[in-house]
Structures are given as C-alpha cells and as structure tokens.
C-alpha cells in the first residue's frame, strides 16, 4: 500500500478542475447567441476556454511551489 505523496501538493492545483466543469456540460453553452465575429456562442465559448485553460495551467505552474 503506497503512502501519501512525500511532499504536499500545492492547493492551487485544484484550479485545474475549472476547465472540466466549464466544458463537460454542453447544456451551459450549446446555443447560438450572443455571437462574436460571426461565430455562434457555442464556438467562441470553446475557443475562449482554450485560452483560459492555458492561462489557468500557467498560473498553477507558476505557483506550484507556494504553499
């Protein structure tokens, strides 16, 4: 039986759950309006979360050694 990880995990790691919650439920974003640059909401919402997910991952990486 493995003991818990030798060093404590950064609490910021929990931020990585956000993209899953934002994208796992299409009921949240499967609609046409409001559109942006001709892209229906369904599409630009996903593209926006692409950028946000990269940003969140960068924050988690930058703060990984903070308690």
């Amino acid at each position, binding site marked *: 039986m493995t003991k818990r*990880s030798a060093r404590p995990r950064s609490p910021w790691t929990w931020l990585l759950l956000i993209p899953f919650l934002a994208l*796992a439920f299409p009921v949240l974003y499967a609609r046409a309006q409001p*559109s942006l640059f001709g892209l229906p909401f369904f599409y630009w919402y996903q593209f926006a979360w692409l950028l946000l997910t990269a940003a969140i991952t*960068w924050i988690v990486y930058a703060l990984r050694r903070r308690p």
Partner: protein
Amino acid sequence: MKSRPDVVAIAVFIVFFALVTVLGFIAARWRRGDLNVIHEWGLAGRRFGTVVTWFLMGGDLYTAYTMIAVPALVYGSGAVGFFALPYTIVAYPFFYLTMPRLWNVSKRHAFVTTADFVQGRYGNRLLALAIAVTGIIATLPYIALQLVGIQVVISAMGIGGSGIGADAPLIIAFVILAAYTYTSGLRAPALIAFVKDLMIYITVIVAVIAIPWKLGGFAHIFAAAQNAFAARVPPAAPGSVILGPAGYWAFSTLALGSAFALFLYPHSVTGTLASARGDVLRRNAVFLPAYSLVLGLIALLGYMAIAAGVKVKSPNSAVPALFNAMFPSWFIGFAFAAIAIAALVPAAIMSIAAANLWTRNIYKAFLRPDASDAQEARIAKITSLVVKVGALAFIIFLPTQYAINLQLLGGIWILQTFPAIILGLYTRWFHHHALLWGWLVAMILGSSLFLLQGLKPTAPLVIGSFSAVVYIAVEAVIVNIAVAALLTVVLDRAGIRRGPDATVAEDYDDPPPVIVPTTTLGTTQPL
C-alpha cells in the same frame, strides 16, 4: 476529386515530401546516440527539452485526425464533431497532473513503456501483458486513420484510377516512412515535426483567413451550413450547427473519454518519456494547447466546405475538396504535403511505440528473456514495420464512413488501461487480478458494443428512467472500475496474495531541487 492529375500540385507535393524524407535519414546523426540500444532508438535518450518536446508532441498528437477526420465529422454531422475541441482542451490539465508522475517513476526505474510501469507497480506479468497487448491493438486503427489521411490527399490530386496503380503512391509513402523510422528511430519524427508544424501553421492561417473572406465571413458560413443541414431529408443523417439536447451526452462523453484516453496511447507516452524532466511536461501543458487552437480552426473547415458547396462521396474528402475549390495548384500541393506529412510523423511515432511494447513486454518478457540490448533494438525496428502492415489490414477490413471512428475505436480499447495505469500512479489499492478481470470484461463489452452498433463509437445507454447516447469507451471503463473494485474486496478477503511493488511513494515526485549554475542546465531550453 479531380478528374485528371493536377501536375503542378503533384510536383510541389513531391518536392516537400522529398525534403522531409532527406531530413528523416539525416535525423540518425542528430544528437547522436547509440541507435542499437532501445532507450536511444525508442526514446531518443530521454533528452528532449521544452521546445523539442513541444514540437515532437505537437507532431505526435495532432495528426490526420486533426486535419481530415475532425472536419469530416463536422462536415457530415455538424456541432457534435466539435467535441474534439473540449477534448484537446481538457486533456492538458489532466496531462499536467498525471504525466509528470509517470515520467518520474519511469525515469527512476528505467521504464520505457506503460506496461513496464504496470509490471513494476503490481509485480504481475499477465497484467503487464494485457497493458502491452491493448496498447498495440489500440494503435493499429489510429495508424490506419493516418493512412486514410494520406489516401484522401493523394486521390484529391487526381492520382488514382483502379487496380494496383491506385494504391501505388500510398505504398511508396509508406515504404519511405518505414525506412527512415527503421534507421533513425524517434529522432526522425522529432526532426520532421519542426517542418511539419511550420507547414501546418502556414496552411491553416492561410485557409482560415482566405476561405471565410472568399465565402463572405463566418456569419454567412454558419448560416449556409445551418440551411444545408435543415434541408436534409431522411435517409440523410441529421445535423445542426448548434448542438441539440439529444447530443449532449454523446458530446461530453466523447470529449472526456478521448481526453482521458489520449495519454494512455503508447505514442503519447513515448513523447512524454522522451522529455528531459517533469517540468518540461508541465510547461508543455501550458503551450501545447496552441495546437488545439489550430485543431478548432481546422474543424471549422467542415462548415466552410458546406458553405462553398463542396460535394464529396465520402466526408473524409471534404477538406481536400475544399482546398481544390479554393486555392491555386501550387498552394494545394503545399497544403496536401503538409497534411500527408502530418499523417506520417505520428504514424512513425505510433509504430515505434507499439514496437517498444512488443519488444520489451511480450518478446523479452515471455519469449526471449535473455535477449541482449542489440537484439532488443533490432526486434523493435522489425516490429515497427510489422505494425504498419497491421494498420493496413484495418483499412481493408473495417470500412467506416468516418475516419474518426477508427480513432474512437482505439479509444474504446486504450481507455481500459486507465485503472491500471492512471489510478496506479496514485494508489495500490486495486488487486492485480481484479484489474485484469475488469480489463477483460470491459474489452469484451466495448468491442461487442462497437460491432453491434455497426462500427459506431456511441451506443444508447438506458438505466431506469435515464437514457442517453454515450461514448462506449466511457461506459466500458465505468464497468471496468466497478468490476476491479468489487473483485479487489473479494480477493483481499479471500487472502489471495498480491505481487510485489517495486516502486515507493517518493519515486512519483519530482527529485528534490538541486542548486546548479544556470549554464549547466544543458538540455533545458528556455521558452
């Protein structure tokens, strides 16, 4: 499909194809190592820094799936095809969490494959064998998808006809791929990936600016696509540009199932383990989504093909047909070469990864335990050839309307290694026999559902008043975990002995930071 060969396009295509072929053979000399050792041939010596890993994994993960299969599904079915975007977004937080752990434990114990890890973790040869076999068979349809990608661009240039002549270009491309993989190992696709990515980025930027401009903007493209879907009458399959409630479960299970499956594939693991440090992977979790942006833009090409009035016999030809309708011959040649190379690079890495599994976890573990390093490397090289022939068989015997179904079939299988590998990175709670039975039940269940659905990756699921269409892989892995959990309790109660665990908790963490002058960091390349 063009009625006669497009000579200019073919000439440009051949020039670029020849360029990467030369690169493939030069690669053997790049960051020279002893290619008769499997670590060197198959993992390029675990020395790749952030930038090389970014190119290699980008070249590895974004394939004909991205260029051909996803836009084909969008062209044919609309919004549901966009599950690929959430898939390639949420895959990276998951990658950030799990893969540095796998890298650390693999580095410390010199594991080359996930089956090596499972052998070390559970001390059971049969479970390791199950992981290796699953990795190999799941890779075959994925390589097959790459071959479909090469096939559609070649036929879109008007080369083809009937009989043996029709397949000749594909076979030539295939032999070239096999030859440089054999001689250069993982260094070949890593070096070619630089060129491939550059070509893909140019193609995509030109396409997503020029085509909407010609077609009158995105609002017009989406309106035209919606009208085309609305005008469909049965027996044509329904479609929509906005996902309908009936598709919610399929969309999210396809996205999440694919995301959790992605880094279980042998070729993803190969790209992961070839990096120099855990932090190289974490940084790549931040920067690899740049490719997902490209994937999303390419997916939109499916709608552009509808708006442009492109009519094709198979949806898989939608993107090449769109390019034929929109661009001059020289650019068509360039773009098609980009697509073909984007299929060859991952096909090379996939065959290397499958070969590593065969050699280490089947040949050496069961057939020739006394094989020397040189024999091991030689068997791996030969196996990389055999695997590609196996992929051809999938194209011949599993004709699916959508190429993406080949990849999704691979996903159904590979996701069944999730409990042993990913859960195994965190806990040893599961009994190895229980994991084996869970795997077996889920493999049979998943494969049968895929066949019963007529080679389709989704199936209706009814539990009481709940009913939805879901990705078979997700259904099967839930059954897998449930069986494994139940049997773990039973086997432990019965006192069935567990195998030894060769790893300890610290093996999974990053090594303690060592203070070194920055100039000696060597393989690390700053971004």
